[in-house]
């Protein structure tokens, strides 16, 4: 892939070790990865392979123990907690598997939260428009407890996209949803990439979900062990995953 634009996120020899001494676990082992603007990347790999760690470090939610993360051209290593938070607020969106929303706030308030935290007043209609885009017109005043799991995920996506971040990270966003809700969430993400050139990095265990991405990155034991274009289809991706899982199972 050739390009001269700054990547949305770049990891260079990214290493993340948890614990010390004998109990040390290397969750990321010198990972190099670039996520170009306007691309949709799926990250796959066996459980414990370091997918979530990759996302957290890439999003600046967690710090590396070695190597470098560069978000939208800014190396995050030297930033203070405050500066990092501000960077995250303006350049990074994040969707967790669940518990994304502040229970005390309505859907609209949740969506407006990053803007408000940044001290900006949301443009009139911006929040409603964002909610409309994720198909939640008329749900602005509902609290998370009054929304279904799929609706909550869509509110979370709306929130992650509202500040037009350089990159959106999603950690198994469809993991706790049924097939139909999951499909709706995926098409939302796809649409964001296609319509607004949004960069998206998504962790998933579902080959069908991965197939909607432009590119699939495979992780095992904290290393990038392969890459496929999303266009190869769910079946080949599933096959690759199965092989990988078999290999790690044997290795252990």
């Amino acid at each position: 892939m050739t390009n001269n634009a700054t990547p949305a996120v770049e990891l260079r020899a990214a290493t993340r070790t948890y614990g010390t001494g004998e109990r040390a676990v290397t969750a990321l082992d010198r990972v190099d990865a670039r996520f170009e603007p306007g691309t949709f990347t799926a990250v796959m790999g066996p459980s414990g392979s370091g997918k979530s760690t990759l996302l957290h470090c890439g999003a600046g939610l967690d710090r590396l123990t070695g190597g470098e993360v560069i978000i939208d051209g800014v190396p995050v290593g030297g930033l203070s907690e405050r500066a990092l938070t501000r960077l995250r607020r303006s350049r990074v969106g994040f969707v967790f598997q669940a518990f994304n929303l502040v229970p005390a706030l309505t859907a609209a308030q949740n969506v407006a939260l990053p803007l408000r935290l940044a001290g900006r007043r949301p443009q009139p209609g911006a929040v409603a428009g964002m909610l409309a885009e994720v198909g939640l017109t008329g749900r602005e005043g509902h609290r998370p407890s009054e929304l279904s799991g799929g609706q909550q995920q869509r509110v979370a996506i709306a929130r992650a996209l509202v500040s037009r971040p350089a990159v959106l990270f999603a950690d198994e966003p469809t993991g706790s949803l049924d097939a139909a809700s999951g499909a709706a969430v995926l098409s939302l993400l796809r649409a964001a990439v296609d319509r607004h050139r949004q960069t998206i990095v998504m962790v998933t265990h579902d080959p069908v979900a991965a197939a909607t991405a432009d590119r699939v990155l495979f992780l095992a034991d904290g290393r990038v062990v392969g890459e496929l274009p999303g266009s190869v289809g769910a079946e080949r991706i599933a096959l690759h995953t199965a092989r990988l899982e078999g290999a790690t199972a044997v290795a252990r």
Partner: protein
Amino acid sequence: MSAAWAMVRHRFASFAGTFVAVFLGVAVVSGSATLYLSSQPQAPARYDQAPVLVTPPNAETGDTRDQQAWTAAEASALAARLGSLPGVMAAVPDPWFYVQRLEAGRATGDDQAALIDGHPWSAATLGAYRLTDGRAPKAKGEVVIGTDVSATATARGGTAPAAAAAGTTASVAAGSGPRGSAVTAGTTVEVLTATGPETWQVTGTVDGPGFYVTDGEAARRASGVRVIGLTVTGDVQKVVDAAAAEVGSSGVVRSGAERDALEPGSITRVRWIGAQLLIALVSLGAFATVFVVSSTCALSAAQRRRELGLLRAVGATPGQVRRMMYAETSLVALLAGLIGAPAGAAAAPLLGDAMVGIGLEPAGFTVTWQPTALIGSVLLGLFVALAGVTAATRRASRIPPLDALREAAADPRAMTPARWVMGPLCAIAGGALLAGMPTFPLEMRSSAGLGAAMFLLCAAALLSPVLIVPLVRTVARPWRGTATGMLVREGTLTGVRRVASTAAPVLATVGLTVLLAGTVATIEVAAGIDETAKYPAADVLVPDGTPGLSAAAVAAQGAEPALTTRLLITHGDTTTGGYATGRGDGLVLDQFTASELGSKAGDVVTVRFADGARAELPVDAVEEEASIPQDLVRRHDPDALTSMIVLKDTAVPTPGARSVPIRDFVMEEIEEEGRLVDLFLLALIGLTAGYTAIAVGNTLLMATTARRVEFQALRLAGAGTGQVLRVVSGEALLAVSVGAALGGLVAVISLAGVRAAVEDEIGRDIDLVIPWGSTAAVTALCAALALTAAAFPVLRAARGRS
């Protein structure tokens, strides 16, 4: 701010603890402050029509008891000069004297107020009192009586705190109705004065309180003159200036609020005692609020870890999280304060009446509207809540964003660096206060003891997480084999922070109870032995509802009176005041006064008497007690009374006196003092115990509600509601035991410090008394509340399912 409001609205349950704590704290503070501010010294109503009052110069010793008097001659000369000033209608000296009405041979009314109940008829102008019937007194033995005197004893009994306090004897008279008949012009009235019982002819009644005799009679009976009242026309300030110029250094001209300095000392003293209680209530209230708010805030922040992590993940900086928590707490505290302050102020009159009844405020005390108290208490509530939440916000702002993903069950770190720093610091501060106790002046020692205990309690609460683990392991050892035992033990050990939050209020309650009750008991025991040791087995004649024994009462026993008078003695440049007894035929100084003056036998000193007269007298001797010839006292302090005499034979009954064995009298005195102390104790312990008990309940309610999921899992694992209840109760009891143990420990340490101070003071070993009864009661109360609060959410959840 709007996010904070949304949080508060949504999670009111988790703010309820803070709300209740601040509400109560503010209510207590606003109520007490309202009472305190309402209870300001007030010039007697008798001088209501005299906007300018002139008094002799202020006491040069700084002690109000050393306030000088003018001699009758000085006073009338000065009054004549003042009376001729422009704008002055009349300048009237008010030489007051002791007179008390006798009914059926018993003194009635307040004994201290009676000391200044006799006045010259001319002084009635100062209050614009007018005759309602009859005529003014014209001769010796004639009197015009005030409304309070002409009323029956039944009516008067209710307003006189001392009568109620004197107990049985007064209430007999009060209960018997017609005996205290109304007095009208033309009848006679029985009174008691410094001379003895007298029968006066009532020539009229007046629409104000007091006894009014002829001016000459009043001047003869009074010990000097202490006030000249001016009634004026036109500009008061002009009169003040003119009077000040006229009086010069021989007096002080008072107008406006300065007049209030004329409040009788006995009333001021009552106010002072009341103020001590109010001050203690305010400081304990504030302390308890900080204590409870900080522990509930810490708990609620821990419970909201996930939510706060999410906010951080979404882009809230640590500063924003901190500010949000401050905003939330401010909102809750303001809300609680705005409700609590008026509630406290509304309750103040009720408490005020009670305080008057007990003798902690003067009769006629009314609570007035005090905006300062209201606003101040709301602000204090806000400030105290913010102080309480500080530690929690610091901690919360450091929550990493990834905590949004983690279950909050296991306590990450129960001990924080702040706790490690503040805990030992508090311990050192408390220890230093205790150690330094003997060097403090007496009246500061009890506050120092309380302050030390507060510091030590904070230290224990801060360091409790360290102590909880070993304590729990020890306490839970016998039950480690059972499933419940295991669950309780592990639940407690992984939830150290929760246990610490629950234990903290118990710690404060038990600690303060043991300390307060223990201090009083220890001192009482020490004082009891001390006082009885001095007296021989004899009877004494003591005042019975009167401020002292009259000359007649003493003479009836065939004894010499032992009049007590206050002298102001000057030697060289030093002046000091002191009491002396009328006896012997020369001036004898006590050692203390002598050393203060630097004088010895043979020196000539200037003595100023109660009536303002001066004399140069040689010092005859320096002995244990000061004395001065009896006839000098009689001449210069005609109003002097004898405080008590030791009887040789059985007493001859006489009005205003009774005889009791010495030991009984001492015990009565101690009991009278003990009654007040007990009352203070009850109020203070009641406040802290009630307060912290609420905190215990609230913390457990919060904690158990937040653990619903955990209990659900327990049920899925096959535990019945009964078993869950047992686990929950076990944990609650464990937390209460830990708190009680720590609180007791702290209190015993503080008590030891107090005892050391007392021992140092009286120079003798005393026993440390631990008040087991109240300790057990308070601990049981905490345990009962804890059990109820812990079981409630479990039972409600169980009922919801069935």
